[in-house]
């Protein structure tokens, strides 16, 4: 190293040190986002509520044992159709099962379907979206054709027929919803990739001969990551609502496995006299959906302040 070079380096170092002393250490993208997110009280509330719902679902056996003291499937015909009270917070159903306990257990399935479909869709959608946007050409045309086909399919009616041919368990429902769910991700990720791949740093990487795979995963993927995180939230919502609708119609997850959707379907027969049987499962769905929306909106604003309206 020549002396001029080391002098320049020293000067740059000291300039950087001075700047750091004046402004504090520079913050990473995630630190910045976290600072903005922390200020967003609605998003924090949404996050806490969603975390609470997930914790209840995960801890359902503990709640059965220590909090309510009821088994979700224990039939007790002497206590059926009880309105909400201190002993039965959400009342009891036609078999005298404690409704709160059942809703907590049903949340395990409903949320698990939401998470599985969302993660599955994101993995497939992001991978294919990266390929579609980065390479373009024939692969892109082919994937776009598939996306158009799935987008034009009225898929609830199709799921109804499939659900009547095969008795679906919750994994089956999650699988089908994933197959029909990833096209939204592909479209959004592809759009992002199309704009990112025009940037200079991608061109620079290509110019010095970096492999395509490395460019996609190291230079492009981190830049679409924030938007993927937001879509993940909306995917959980979409999957939960579709599952609820399908199970409500009787073609989704079958009893005795309880989900918020099939609890509604079952409650319908007794609804006029026992409105809480319809009210609470729907409330659980709405609460989950609303908290995810707040969280996802907050994440979007925190990670990309330009999008804020």
């Amino acid at each position, binding site marked *: 190293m020549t002396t001029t070079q080391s002098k320049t380096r020293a000067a740059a170092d000291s300039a950087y040190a001075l700047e750091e002393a004046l402004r504090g250490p520079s913050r990473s993208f995630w630190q910045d986002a976290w600072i903005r997110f922390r200020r967003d009280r609605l998003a924090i509330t949404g996050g806490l509520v969603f975390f609470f719902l997930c914790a209840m679902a995960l801890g359902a056996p503990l709640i059965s044992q220590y909090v309510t003291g009821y088994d979700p499937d224990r039939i007790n015909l002497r206590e059926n159709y009880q309105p909400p009270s201190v002993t039965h917070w959400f009342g009891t159903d036609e078999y005298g099962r404690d409704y709160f306990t059942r809703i907590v257990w049903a949340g395990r399935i409903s949320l698990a379907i939401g998470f599985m479909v969302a993660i599955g869709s994101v993995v497939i959608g992001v991978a294919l979206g990266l390929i579609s946007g980065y390479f373009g050409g024939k692969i892109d045309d082919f994937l776009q054709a598939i996306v158009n086909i799935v987008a034009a399919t009225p898929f609830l009616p199709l799921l109804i*027929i499939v659900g009547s041919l095969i008795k679906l368990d919750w994994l089956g429902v999650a699988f089908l919803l994933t197959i029909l769910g990833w096209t939204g991700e592909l479209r959004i990720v592809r759009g992002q990739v199309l704009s990112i791949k025009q940037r200079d740093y991608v061109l620079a990487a290509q110019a010095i001969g970096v492999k395509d795979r490395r460019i996609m995963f190291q230079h492009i993927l981190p830049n679409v990551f924030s938007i993927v995180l937001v879509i993940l939230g909306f995917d959980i919502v979409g999957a939960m609502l579709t599952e609820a609708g399908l199970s409500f119609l009787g073609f989704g997850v079958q009893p005795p496995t309880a989900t918020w959707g099939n609890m509604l379907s079952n409650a319908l027969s007794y609804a006029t006299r026992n409105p809480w049987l*319809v009210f609470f499962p729907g409330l659980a769905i709405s609460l989950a959906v609303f908290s995810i*929306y707040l969280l996802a909106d907050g994440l979007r604003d925190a990670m990309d302040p330009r999008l804020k309206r």
Partner: protein
Amino acid sequence: MTRYLVRRLLQTIPVLIIISIIQFGLINAAPGGPLKAYILDPNVDPEDIKRLERDLGLDQPLPIQYLVWMGNMLTGNMGYSYFTHRPVLEAVLERLPATLELGIAATLISYIIGIPLGVYAGLHRGGRIDNVIRFFLSILNAVPHWWLGLLAIILLANIKLATGVQILPIAGMKTLGREEFDPLDYLWHLILPAFMLGTTGWVGFGRYMRSETLEVLGQDYVRTAYAKGLAQRVVVFRHILRNALIPVVTLSAGLLVGLISGAAIYEQVFSWPGMGRLLLDATLKKDYPISIGVVFVFTILAVVGRLIADLAYGWVDPRIRYD
């Protein structure tokens, strides 16, 4: 324009083909196959079934069967119900008006409520009414709307039980047993289902129109319009509304597909005798030709709806060229 139309129509062909293959696969996956009705019937001789299979080409390889089936579907011969032996097309088209009536009414309600609500909130950004509208719209956005429908039905049924007053009918298209056509009776039965089905639309349009209005308000031409002293009403209708409305046209296509997809749920909730109910009833009875027929008509409706929305988009926004 014609070239664009032709290209779009050509693009919809592969979509229809793939969906029809899936549907054909589903019929053949159905237990008992297409001749189930006859196999179950003890009065039908097994020899006759063999002969029918030959006559109908069911002994042919599947790809050939598919081509024959597709040809039949396109010429309107969608097969016969396993149970009533009626032609599928007839049974499905009989239910089409009810579904369209509900869908169109719901769309109109989406516009009538959603657009003014969103524009008003956008024009009064940050005010108390804006905050109230925004709060309710974001809560309603998270609620499954068919569940709201269920709650409304329970509420009305309980009011009926308690006071004997039927505020709104909660099931069906018309008063049972009334044979003559009575438009008021139909309208009366339409209000609750259409409002509830329309909730998806007006909540979405309301939220969208609010942010779209804010966007347009920031444009130079709106400032110019205010600066040259135009009345608020003129600015709102001529400059803001007309531009903010453009994306609503595209959203309408999504709404239509959503309404079709959700028809089964709403028609179940409100006992509405449309195609969605037909699909549910047929599928429960495992009357698959009818189920497939409904999905086929749904698919065509969705594809045509999206095409119309794309064309309308160019019509409302002359900056868009089709070539």
